[in-house]
C-alpha cells in the first residue's frame, strides 16, 4: 500500500490491528488502520492530537 499523501510505500506490520497508527517513513503522515481482513488493509487519516488527549 502506498501513502495517500506522498505515494511512498507504507510499511504496515503483519500483526498491526484495527485502531493502530502507522506513519509514513517518507513524509511523516499518520494513518489509522480502519479495516483489516487477512492481507487486505484499509487506512484513514489519523485524528490530530486534541486538547483533551492524554491520560
Amino acid at each position, binding site marked *: 500500500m502506498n501513502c495517500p499523501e506522498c505515494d511512498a510505500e507504507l510499511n504496515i506490520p503483519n500483526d498491526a*490491528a*484495527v*485502531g*493502530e*497508527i502507522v506513519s509514513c517513513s517518507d513524509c511523516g503522515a499518520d494513518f*489509522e488502520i480502519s479495516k483489516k481482513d487477512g492481507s487486505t488493509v484499509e487506512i484513514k487519516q*489519523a*485524528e490530530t492530537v*486534541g*486538547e*483533551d*488527549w*492524554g*491520560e
Partner: protein
Amino acid sequence: MSKICIVFDRLRSEEKLLEKQAIDLGNETKMVDAKITHFDTDSNKQNTDFGDVVLERCISYYRGLHFTACIEFLDVPIINKFSVSSLCGNKMLTSIILKKNNIPTPKTYFSFSADAALENIEKIGYPLIIKPVVGSWGRSVIPLKDRDTADAIIEQRGITDGPLDRIFYLQEVVDRPPRDIRVITVNDRPIAAMYRKSSGGFKTNVALGADPEICDITNEIEDLCAKASKAVGGGILGIDLMEDKKRGLMVHEINNTVEFKGLIKVSKTNIPKEMIEFALDSVRK
C-alpha cells in the same frame, strides 16, 4: 470465563497488553473502537454487547467520559466509573477534592476571567505555574515568572477562547528535586511506582521524554495514594506525587486512563495483569 471489553480510540501498546493479558488469563475479549460505536436512548444490555466489564482506555478525555456515561446507562460495569473520570480529568476538581479530604496538594488558585486571573497573579506574586484544567502530557503547563509572561499567556487564552480557556488554574511552584513520582493504583492499592526525571525543563512527563526510574513504594506513598484513590472513587489510577523539600509528599494530579508504557520498562509488577484481575473482580462482585 468472563468477557472483557477494552474501549479505545487509538490502539496503543497498553491496550494490546491488556487484551493479551485478559486472553492469557482465560477470558474472552472484545476490542471496541469508540469512534465507530453508536448508542441511543433505547440501547440496553440485551441489544448491545460490551461483555461483562468494560475498561475505558480512550486517549480523548471527553470521548471517554461520554462513552463511560453510555456504558453506565446500560448498567454494564466500567472502569473507571463516570464519577471518577469526571473528577480526575479536571485538574481543578481534583485539587478541590484532594484538599477537601486533607490530602497534601500544592496550593492552587482559581480565577474565572482573564482580568481576575491577572489581578490574582499580581496579588500572589511570581513565580506561578499556569495549567489547563483539562489536558495531559504537560501540554500548556507554563511557568509564569514575570508580568510580561503572564500577560502573554493570558492574552493567548483570550485568542483561543475555548470554554475551558476562561478557567484559570494557577499553582504554586513546589520546591522539589527535578523529578516527580508516578504511582499506579488498582483498587486503592499502589502496584508500581517510578520516578520521572526531568529531561532538562521543569516538566517530568514521560510523554515529553522524562527518564523513568523505579521507585520503592514506601509506607508513606502507600498511605497517601490509598487516601487519594479513595477520595476520587477508586478504580485504576495514575497518581502523581511531588516531593516538597519542607512539606514532604504532595499529590498534584490523578490520571484516570493511566498510561504505563514507561513504568512497565522498570517495574517488576505485571501491571496489565493487576488491571485485568481487578476488572474480573469487579464482575464477580
